[in-house]
């Protein structure tokens, strides 16, 4: 609806703003963020995060994309992509994980789990992640072994929980 008009006297604002004081006023969660999947606590799991970073790097290399191309497609900064790929101590923003999930065509939930942003509930996720990270190395082109590991991991995290 358009054309909504607010027409309160100046005195009203004076009284009401005094009541507001220095209070915080934020409310809600933006549409699109699956609020209930975001845990309150930050679960730090370096091992799954290594797998998350490796997965992001291999996904784009499998496409022949550089980090800038993935960043542009996902509407993220290149630096953020590189940080996710290379620094398992870096905690990705939930929004960045949602954007990557959208580009990858995957459900955000297992990726949020890998990124350590929610408690893992996907069966065998951690075992699969460690196995995947151990079998993959960040070298220039995907070799057959890496491709096989990558594809097996995609199918493992694509299974319904």
């Amino acid at each position, binding site marked *: *609806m*358009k*054309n*909504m*008009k*607010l*027409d*309160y006297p*100046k005195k*009203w*604002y*004076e*009284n*009401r*703003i005094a*009541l*507001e*004081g*220095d*209070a*915080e*006023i*934020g*409310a*809600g*969660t*933006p*549409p*699109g963020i699956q*609020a*209930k999947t*975001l845990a*309150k606590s*930050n679960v730090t799991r370096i091992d799954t995060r290594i797998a998350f970073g490796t997965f992001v790097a291999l996904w784009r290399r499998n496409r022949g994309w550089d980090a800038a191309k993935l960043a542009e497609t996902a*509407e993220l900064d290149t630096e953020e992509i590189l940080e996710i790929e290379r620094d398992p101590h870096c*905690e990705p*923003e*939930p*929004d960045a994980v949602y*954007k990557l999930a959208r580009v990858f065509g995957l459900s955000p939930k297992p990726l949020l789990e890998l990124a350590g942003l929610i408690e893992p509930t996907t069966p065998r996720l951690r075992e699969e992640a460690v196995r995947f990270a151990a079998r993959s190395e960040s070298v220039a082109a995907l070799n057959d072994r890496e491709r096989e590991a990558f594809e097996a991991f995609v199918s493992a995290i694509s299974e319904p929980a």
Partner: protein
Amino acid sequence: MTESRVFLRKSETNELVESSLLDEVTDHHLAMWNGSWRPAMEAYCAGRVLRDKPEDHHWDWKWKANEWRPLLGYHSFAIVCENDLQGLMVASDFKSARLQAQFGKPIVYVEFVATAPWNRPELQNPPRYRGVGTVMVAAAVELSWDLGYRGRIGLHSLPKAEPFYRESCGMTELGKDAAHQNLMYYEMTDNQAERFRQK
């Protein structure tokens, strides 16, 4: 798009300054968000761990705009004062009240609302302007009146904002909602809305 004349209190002079409430968030507003609000938030968050960042630090208004813009049931609002964006809100009009006294009746539900980083005492003290929350709640109540919902509104408050909705706005607290990140859910009845408009 309609512009309403509203007021915010400027800390520097302690005077009420004329501001604009727009009943549509335009690309121009999103460009302002991208150009000043977002960098200010990023600068504050740099080097801070997650628990010390503002609860809405990851909200990306630009990215979400295309999801709600084409929909009749969503209404967006922006407050502009002295050529900068001071607050943003998106509300929907097809959700139903949970409070027993008005159960099942439609409400204006505040999907999300936030004030610019420089208006938050937690980030900048004193804040540049006060009153963004008041203007946005007034806008939600007014929209509810316009739709024939008699001023009924509902929202999930971020934890630090609970006193504002409970005490300053006089809304009824209905408990934490497991389906919404355990945020506290509040509703304003038609009587509470009437009091809010009169005060």
